[in-house]
């Protein structure tokens, strides 16, 4: 049985099931012969116009309102026959296949009506809006970027669905219809001499195109990400990689940070002279733990926005900020480096300054919000080996309590040291 026969068989079975369902519901509500949707439209007259739309949902078209609604009573809004986020799945059971690699959040949550009109629409598939306009309703930043970039990727303008599946993908992340580079190779022929020349004869047909190219368009030629590593911009691939005709052309000439040290020796040597290291810098992946070596949409070739990037390892710290009642602006603004050195430091916690009081003082004039003494002259009564400082009363990444204090009330905080006031 070939695919065509299978599809025909599936169509027939679906049709039988649909008719059986309708017959079942008719039986359930004991409707008058020929009543069905006509009875409903007797009151819901405004629906008459809706039914004139170019695309009408099949149950609506055949007047099967009871497929989704309960005509008498319901525990759900709009007299729906089931929970709003589950009702579509009664018919569209396989919208997210069991083998899905990635799935669209709104689909998982059953918010089908964010994209589809359940009754009728002027757009194919009952979509609320046509083309990319619908996607950019939620993915606004992407929409703005796509419209503003100088160098556009043609398929994006034609429609997001050229590359993405709106519901789920069984093949790749990001709802992509196929993995990269297979997806890209559907249009781009790597055997083209010009293509090969542009890629310095490296066998990129097996590489991940999106490590250099922004598939949504860019302000750089060749839709490279906006921030391009100079050797890439100058097509000096073999500065870091083996020659294109070597047995392993993508292998780097040196491992880890030692490769980057070739150019960034001042920065790396300075980092290696500090007391405290951010250890991942010297791990096997080295600089690539945080940086994309080719190009990035983030500054300093960071792989992702800083908070997200730091949060890949320090998830607990970022989560604490997210759950904090009072937000600490540097973290909220996504700039961890206001307080921390990303590579190395002579200070505890990789702080930018040896003194926490001075560090906090770069933004906060503490005298204006508190007259509590701080500094080395004032030992912490809880621990004589410490002195009172900002972190004695606040946790910089936040707490569940106001002003980032580590206790539920200010009284609870103060009596930690001022025990004479404890009641």
């Amino acid at each position: 049985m070939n695919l065509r026969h299978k599809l025909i068989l599936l169509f027939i079975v679906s049709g039988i099931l649909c008719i059986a369902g309708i017959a079942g519901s008719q039986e359930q509500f004991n409707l008058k012969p020929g009543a069905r949707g006509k009875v409903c439209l007797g009151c819901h007259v405004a629906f008459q116009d809706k039914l004139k739309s170019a695309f009408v949902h099949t149950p609506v078209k055949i007047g099967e309102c009871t497929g989704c609604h309960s005509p008498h009573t319901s525990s759900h809004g709009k007299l729906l026959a089931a929970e709003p986020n589950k009702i579509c799945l009664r018919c569209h059971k396989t919208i997210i296949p069991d083998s899905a690699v990635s799935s669209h959040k709104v689909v998982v949550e059953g918010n089908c009506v964010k994209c589809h009109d359940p009754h009728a629409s002027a757009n194919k598939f009952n979509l609320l809006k046509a083309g990319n306009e619908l996607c950019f309703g939620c993915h606004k930043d992407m929409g703005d970027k796509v419209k503003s970039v100088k160098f556009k990727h043609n398929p994006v303008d034609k429609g997001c669905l050229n590359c993405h599946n709106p519901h789920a993908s069984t093949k790749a992340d990001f709802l992509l219809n196929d993995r990269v580079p297979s997806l890209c190779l559907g249009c781009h022929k790597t055997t083209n001499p010009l293509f090969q020349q542009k890629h310095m004869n490296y066998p990129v047909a097996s590489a991940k195109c999106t490590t250099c190219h922004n598939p949504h368009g860019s302000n750089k030629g060749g839709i490279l990400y906006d921030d391009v590593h100079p050797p890439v911009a100058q097509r000096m691939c073999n500065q870091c990689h083996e020659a294109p005709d070597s047995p392993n052309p993508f292998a780097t000439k040196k491992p880890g940070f030692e490769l980057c040290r070739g150019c960034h020796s001042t920065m790396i040597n300075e980092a290696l002279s500090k007391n405290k290291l951010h250890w991942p810098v010297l791990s096997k992946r080295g600089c690539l733990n945080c940086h994309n070596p080719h190009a990035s949409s983030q500054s300093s070739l960071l792989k992702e926005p800083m908070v997200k990037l730091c949060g890949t390892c320090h998830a607990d710290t970022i989560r604490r900020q997210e759950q904090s009642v009072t937000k600490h602006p540097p973290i909220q603004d996504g700039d961890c480096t206001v307080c921390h050195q990303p590579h190395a430091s002579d200070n505890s916690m990789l702080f930018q300054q040896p003194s926490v009081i001075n560090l906090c003082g770069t933004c906060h004039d503490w005298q204006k919000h508190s007259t509590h003494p701080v500094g080395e002259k004032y030992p912490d009564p809880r621990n004589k080996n410490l002195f009172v400082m900002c972190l004695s009363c606040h946790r910089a990444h936040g707490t569940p309590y106001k002003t980032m204090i580590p206790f539920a009330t200010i009284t609870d905080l103060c009596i930690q040291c001022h025990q004479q006031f404890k009641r």
Partner: protein
Amino acid sequence: MKMKYAMKVIVFLTVLLLPFKSFGAENVNLIFVAAVSADDKGNGMRLPEGIACNDKSDVVVADSGNGRLLKYTFKNETLQGGSEIKPAQLSYPVIVQLNSKGEIFALDEKQRRVARLGADGAFEGFVETAGVPAPDTVVPRSFRVDSSDRIYICDIFGARVLIFDPAGKFVRQIPFPDNYGFISDLAVDPRGKIYLLDSVRAMIYTAAADATAFTPITKEMKEYMDFPVSITLDSRGVIYVVDKDGGNMSVIGQDGTFMGHQLQRGWKEGLLYYPSQFCIDDKGYFFIADRNNGRVQIFSMLK
């Protein structure tokens, strides 16, 4: 005949009582014993990150912020002494170990090398990595010395554990497991089984003494731990993990089951604030480098 019957009874009782023995870990309960935050001259510790202890009551502290080691004797449930060891070759010690001869080993974070000192604190040299397979560069994030004085280095650059004999000669290597997050520490039990701690995934992997690869013994335990950084086992084989960000200790059974938390975050005695290395002596005392509280704390197990 009677003997055979008696043997059967013993075997039966052993099987019957086995579950009670394995539940032992659940009963772990640490109680505060003492805190020390200064050397023998009263000079305070600064951000101490490392601590090692042995069955001869020796305790060595890596007083990292002051760039020195401090040597104590644990007696009558208190640390006595606290003499300073500050060789010129040591800049920023963060992890320490003692071998069976009382020699001191210290990982210097600034130099990223493991220094070997005599029991008297005299500098003897660095553990050399000559003979190690490629890559030549070795970046020790942590290390351990086992009961036979073999040295195990957690090399994050080569993504492997390097094993050296007591003289410092390279013996073999075991690669880090696939898909690890970030390996911060390791432990070795008396049978030579290696335990690897993944801080990012909050997981533990093990490799038997003759194994060539690590396998996980736990699932991700991120719901129980924030950022675990140090791992040690007690004499029963129960695994303990110090959570730096969480300011507490997790207890894990030999089979990798999470058994519960001990201790809490805070500044007062008995509480931890960004703790780092810890050790357990043969009598079951826990010695913890309580880094951001600038002290060492001692706990005993409630029996």
